């Protein structure tokens, strides 16, 4: 892995995908950067217009391609830029997590978090915490 300035705590090869909503969580991650909060560099961030854009197919595809964990982060409930996107996501993921577990992908590998634009500290804590959690699970290995 390439050494990275934000990579202070990481020594794992975990691959984490983060889907961040444009309006809150992506700005929150940005805030983490500008406030010099560090978070594990093995999360790959993907900006989406809304957490409601995160089709469960995208999440399943990530796992099929060998991701160890998927983080979906959006505006706090009630704060969605589009009014209700995150409410739909909340329901979908509530069904998807136990379903993935049923298929043999531990449900701890999929996380839904609410991070606002000002919560840079929270964002870095969420990612660090997620990484720690994933380290406890057996690595998933590279997809065939």
């Amino acid at each position, binding site marked *: 892995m390439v050494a990275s300035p934000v990579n202070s705590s990481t020594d794992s090869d975990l691959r984490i995908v983060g889907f961040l909503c444009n309006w809150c969580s992506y700005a929150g991650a940005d805030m983490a950067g500008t406030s010099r909060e560090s978070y594990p560099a093995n999360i790959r961030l993907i900006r989406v217009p809304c957490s409601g854009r995160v089709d469960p*197919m995208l999440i399943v595809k990530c796992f099929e391609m060998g991701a160890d964990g998927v983080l979906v982060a959006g505006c706090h409930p009630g704060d969605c830029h589009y009014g209700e996107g995150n409410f*739909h996501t*909340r*329901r979908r993921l509530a069904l*998807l997590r136990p379903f993935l577990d*049923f298929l043999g992908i531990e449900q701890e590998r999929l996380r839904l978090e609410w991070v606002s634009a000002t919560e840079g500290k929270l964002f870095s804590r969420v990612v660090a915490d997620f990484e720690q959690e994933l380290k406890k699970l057996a690595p998933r290995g590279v997809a*065939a």
Partner: protein
Amino acid sequence: MIEQIRAKARELLESGAVDCAIGYERASDGITARPFFAYRPEEVERFIFDETCVHNLAPYLMDRRTKVSALVAKPCDARAINLLLQEKQLERERVFIIGVVCSGVVETGWNRAGEAPAPRCATCPQHTPPVYDFLVGDPVAEEAPPAVTSPEVAELEAMGVEERRSFWEEHFDRCLRCYACRQVCPGCYCKECFVDRLDPLWVGIRIAPVENHMWNTIRAFHLAGRCIECGECERVCPVNIPLMRLNSKLNQETAELFDFQPGLSAEAQPPLATFRPDDDL
């Protein structure tokens, strides 16, 4: 029972109320049943109904959306019609439902019909269709809603996550991706299925376990909160993947989280089409 179906179908065809009556006839093997479309009154003599009538005929309605059809429907088939009505895929006026009181169908195969009930029927408590225009047979009193838990799901849930993973890997490895499960499913009516899309290519054409995994995972998840559990996908699977376990698991979760069972009513709001701001999930 058969006479009632024939008489009703004849009446509907003669009066011109429907353009076609869809039911079952004896297949050419003389043992099993096959779908039959009667367009003329004299053809109704070919209709039969017995425990070999395993097919869910509701998907045929999707090809006849602009015409009026009569359909012979068992309880699970009627639930499929409810699903299609509720998802606005079908207009209620365009289908005349000849509901049949059903005590379960048997397992059938090429040239044979078994004694044992089909897996879904063994535990199904629903004998009267939830929706019909004309009922054949005597309705059974005190109907329990379909069970939300299944022993097959519980068996898998009791395993460790690793064990479950290898269980599904073993099954999905056999998948031919023939998509018979999709073709037969009353809930899979998309004009373009995600699996047929080339851009984005959700499921690659190569023969690889991950592609099979992707297909089977998403097929089931697209039926989350929608599967009416007729068991047709599992019945037609040429490599016997226990697909109903996936669907039942999702239905179980839907029932627990949202107190919802699909297909019982055409008016109920499906849980993934709505939300509550105070959902505690």
